[in-house]
């Protein structure tokens, strides 16, 4: 068979990567807060996570509008995005919108005073918001995962990978926010074990996804794998994602759990570790989107 033929398509670019990343961080921040509150881990972390979630997801949605070809010239067409929930994009925008509203209410309603009293927070609302937060995280993976024409994305490991990544980056953003607001890092250590589990799971799922790609019968999928591990994306993958985004947080948290690792729980090391997780999470989305584009629009005859 001859080489694939280029079709010169415009494809999804960096705004989509940022949008998927921010939506994931926002939903992950909310779940971190939800967990922290339910488990009584840290009130400060819970407040910061709730406050972060709504604005982050709103920012992501705004980026999506900017990325639409007709989003700025014909903004009223955005209404149509709510009319076809059989499309993963339409369904996702529904979930995202519901979550955004709930997260803003849960994060900020208590600041509003009504007849001299602060508005109460509703436990049921928090539960629904937490469920939709999981929906948002899975959606960012399924958006890509349902595209049969990009077999590199088209497997069940991808939504799981983005779910785990959203949880770990959301937690990192929340912990970092908490440290920045309070200039103290106490309470962060309580999340160390959870963090090890998340980063470990992320590495494992990523390995599974890459194994699928490496052994795929589709040439384009194998070239996606090649691009990530050996080609143009390899430096970002090995240095940015594997080393900075996965190995550093894993080692940090493993050492941090030992008595001698207490020094790591000072504000600056915590912030550096959170930054590593966030950078790694962003690069993960970038690599997955970019690698899926390798060979896309090429039609093999």
């Amino acid at each position: 068979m001859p080489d694939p033929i280029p079709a010169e398509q415009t494809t999804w670019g960096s705004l989509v990567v940022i949008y998927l990343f921010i939506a994931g961080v926002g939903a992950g921040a909310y779940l971190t807060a939800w967990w922290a509150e339910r488990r009584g881990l840290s009130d400060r972390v819970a407040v910061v996570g709730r406050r972060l979630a709504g604005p982050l997801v709103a920012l992501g949605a705004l980026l999506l509008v900017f990325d639409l070809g007709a989003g700025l010239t014909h903004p009223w067409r955005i209404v149509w995005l709510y009319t076809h929930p059989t499309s993963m994009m339409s369904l996702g925008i529904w979930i995202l919108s519901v979550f955004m509203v709930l997260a803003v209410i849960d994060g900020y309603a208590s600041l509003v005073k009504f007849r001299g009293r602060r508005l109460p927070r509703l436990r049921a609302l928090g539960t629904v918001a937490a469920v939709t937060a999981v929906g948002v995280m899975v959606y960012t993976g399924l958006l890509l995962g349902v595209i049969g024409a990009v077999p590199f994305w088209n497997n069940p490991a991808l939504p799981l990978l983005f779910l785990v990544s959203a949880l770990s980056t959301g937690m990192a953003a929340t912990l970092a926010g908490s440290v920045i607001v309070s200039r103290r890092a106490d309470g962060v250590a309580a999340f160390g074990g959870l963090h090890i589990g998340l980063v470990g799971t992320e590495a494992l799922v990523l390995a599974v996804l890459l194994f699928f790609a490496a052994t795929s019968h589709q040439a384009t999928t194998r070239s996606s794998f090649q691009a990530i591990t050996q080609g143009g994306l390899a430096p970002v993958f090995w240095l940015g994602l594997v080393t900075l985004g996965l190995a550093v947080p894993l080692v940090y948290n493993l050492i941090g759990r030992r008595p001698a690792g207490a020094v790591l729980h000072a504000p600056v090391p915590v912030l550096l570790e959170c930054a590593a997780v966030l950078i790694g999470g962003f690069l993960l989305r970038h690599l997955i989107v970019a690698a899926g584009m390798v060979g896309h629009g090429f039609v093999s005859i």
Partner: protein
Amino acid sequence: MARWGMTIDLDLCIGCEACTVACKANNFTPSGVSWLRIVKDEAGQFPNVTRLPFPLQCQQCAKAPCVDVCPTGATYVRDDGIVAVNYDKCVGCQYCVLACPYGARTFVEDLAPYYPAGKTEFELFAGLLGGEPDAATGLPGRHQAGVVEKCVFCVQKIESGIAAGLTPGVDADATPACVVTCIAGARVFGDLDDPDSAVSRKASSSGAFRFHEEYGTEPNIYYLPARQLA
């Protein structure tokens, strides 16, 4: 209701691109946009090699992945089998561009002139014709920046032809431009639901195949294979 379909005989196609030009001339596609193209394939081992032209455009799938993913319903399958785009509902998310396994969709980034010096006579003429939307279809004759376009089987010719009492696939004025112009007669158009139509007979002849049948998209374009080289 008819189900419009096409056959493309790869044994007759000489890759002259007359269809590519006829498509542009009839649909006034913007600069950088072509609804059909001829993929120049190769076959054989040196020194016995040959080039195989493979005309490629929207396959008008009955189970179109682009329709499944469209979040606004801008892309839809018409009752006559044509996959159409309502530009006024398209938000330009390009999800369909990703989903189409045939690379048949193009995002129109802008409506820049063909050449930097300004619009050519062709573009001025196209602009005159394309000023008002086609009320019935919302389709060709006009273009928008920021939306996704594709081949629609020259639906405006089919509809105006039928209204004038003509038969698509038989009368040139009711038949897609690429079919009318093909100098080799490689393209046949007509109603696939009519077993006696020329297109039905060709589509059911031996060796006829649909492009990447394994995708399960059920295209309404059938190809006939090129003869193997000795």
